[in-house]
């Protein structure tokens, strides 16, 4: 019964993928004899105009997956041990980002694939006005003149909802609020009209009110372009608001993947279920708000448990879970679950 790790990605529901990650393994060499398998056999795909949320806790590998796609983790201690990341370029060619010469990757990065991060302050250069930082990408990737790039930068600031964009373009990052800085980051990411945006916890540092504004902005921008998005987050509630599909990661692996409504309403993997119960929520019947923590401790990524990574914390654990490493199993409608017992516990 125990199955091996599947290397084939799940069948894609929505047309030809713009991005296909196959069996990706990104490891970190901690010292001579310890290896952190941050991403270990991840396969994901994404169609044009689609949003895939990658959800997990710290250390689950969700950010490393995004950084690997951007090819920002090619040097020691990081090591891409296996896998491929096929990306459909604007000119129609499909390339494996992991084997591309750096010069060509540089033409894709920031142009065809853009990324935004949680902390815009550390991704913006503090000594240049924000307009100039947006214009830089346009001049580099689009060979625009200084004047044209500046005009476009101001338009972009307006597009992301910054009032008085011409004046703001001359301001420095420290003069802007956190919400405005994140808008600048989004303007910068969108400058070259990317086919894929990787958003790594873009609203985590913001107030809920500002978060709601940024989410609305991202949804709106996506409606207008056909941009695909990978939305990395720890917040399962946020997922429902933006994603078409969601992949839940635990300990370097995707443990469950599926259409957002199916997965959130009918989670099959015990980890997804447990994670949903950690979110403070009001019981509609009693009116009482509660949280239920997950039993046990998060797996040590340097020495992950044998068998299913989640088995030491799983309320449904059986002997087979300790031995065999479960593969992703299709439970219908593109809903994949890495659990040997999903049928019994459903």
């Amino acid at each position, binding site marked *: 019964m125990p199955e091996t790790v599947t290397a084939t990605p799940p069948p894609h529901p929505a047309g030809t993928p713009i991005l296909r990650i196959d069996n990706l393994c990104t490891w970190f060499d901690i010292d001579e004899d310890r290896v952190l398998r941050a991403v270990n056999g991840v396969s994901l795909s994404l169609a044009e105009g689609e949003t895939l949320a990658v959800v997990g*806790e710290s250390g689950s590998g969700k950010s490393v997956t995004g950084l690997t796609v951007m090819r920002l983790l090619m040097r020691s201690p990081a090591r891409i041990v296996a896998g491929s990341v096929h990306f459909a370029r604007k000119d129609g060619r499909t390339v494996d980002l992991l084997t591309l010469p750096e010069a060509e990757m540089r033409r894709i990065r920031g142009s065809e694939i853009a990324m935004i991060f949680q902390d815009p302050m550390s991704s913006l250069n503090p000594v240049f006005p924000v307009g100039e930082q947006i214009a830089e990408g346009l001049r580099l990737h689009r060979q625009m003149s200084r004047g044209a790039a500046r005009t476009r930068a101001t338009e972009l600031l307006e597009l992301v909802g910054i009032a008085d964009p011409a004046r703001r373009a001359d301001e420095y990052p420290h003069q802007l*609020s*956190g*919400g405005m800085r994140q808008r600048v980051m989004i303007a910068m990411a969108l400058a070259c009209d990317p086919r894929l945006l990787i958003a790594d916890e873009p609203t985590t540092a913001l107030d*809920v009110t*500002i978060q709601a504004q940024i989410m609305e902005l991202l949804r709106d921008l996506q409606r207008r372009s056909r941009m695909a998005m990978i939305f990395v987050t720890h917040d399962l509630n946020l997922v429902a*608001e933006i994603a078409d599909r969601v992949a839940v990661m635990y300990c370097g692996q995707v443990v469950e993947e599926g259409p957002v409504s199916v997965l959130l309403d009918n989670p099959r993997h015990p980890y997804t279920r447990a994670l949903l119960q950690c979110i403070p929520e009001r019981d509609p019947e009693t009116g009482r708000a509660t*949280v239920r923590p997950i039993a046990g401790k*998060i797996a040590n990524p340097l020495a992950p448990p044998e068998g299913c990574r989640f088995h030491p914390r799983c309320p449904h654990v059986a002997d087979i879970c300790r031995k065999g490493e479960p593969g992703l199993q299709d439970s219908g409608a593109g809903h994949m679950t890495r659990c040997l017992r999903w049928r019994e516990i459903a």
Partner: protein
Amino acid sequence: MTAAAPIPTATAAPLLRATGVSKHFPITRGLLSRTVGHVRAVEGIDLEIAQGECLGVVGESGSGKSTLGRVILRLLDPTAGQIAFDGTDVASLSPGALRAFRRHMQMIFQDPFASLNPRMTVGASIREAMRLHRVCEPSELDDRVAGILGRVGMSPDHASRYPKAFSGGQRQRIAIARALAVGPRFLVADEPVSALDVSIQAEVIELLQELRRDFALATLFISHDLSVVEVVAERVMVMYLGRTMETGDTRRIFARPHHPYTNALLSAIPSRRSRPDRIVLKGEIPSPSNPPSGCVFRTRCRHALPECAAAVPPMRQIAPGQWSACIRDDITTGAAS
């Protein structure tokens, strides 16, 4: 601010009562540091907390909620107002008396790495607090440290390790142990779970709830996360630009908010369930150095009337266990609408 209005009351005789508390920070300019204005971080706040009760304080960054927590512990001196703790006027304590008094009032912070000394072992950090407040005989210290560590779900042999050996959740447990080691009756928790992963957050929330029950701790729980406050706090206070917008029983306010700001905040919480009628507030919180006249929220309020600019709306009782500083009663809000 609203001397005639009843202070929103604690469910029992209050352990802590703050009346008209304000904190202004001077804005200085030039060589001689001339004061050119004030940041009105906290403006005329009234609150009460009973023994064993938890009051949640929510609001966006810049609402003054953290400043309020610090003023109540007198880590900052209030510009105006009284703070009475079990009959003692905290605002007028001498520095020496205040130091001794801190034994009753402790604080935990968002970032436990910044609040634990990296060069002191966990045991030494906890022992120091207990020694300073002469909690017990020096010979008992080690036992007490082991006991309190066990109480927060850590092992006694963690006492000999340094903070860097622990994860964020464990460090928050250590910070809680240190705060509780001196036997406080009142705890200010400033975003204690905001930096933690959701599963760890759930563990720390559960621990804090347990400890609060067992030690009958009065708690002021400051958080920007309304769903966390809904779980931990019996009563809630919604702040905006240094003022209270709405306060009362958490369940009542979450079910039927009266103030448009509370309604907007609640509607901004991401949810798995569909929410077709989301209110997205325009713009950002204005500068507290130049707050709008009248109701400070009116510049972002879609229900604002010309009258809202005229005077600061008084806090008034809307329903049993609910007070709101909005002059309008004709706005339908919340889940019941």
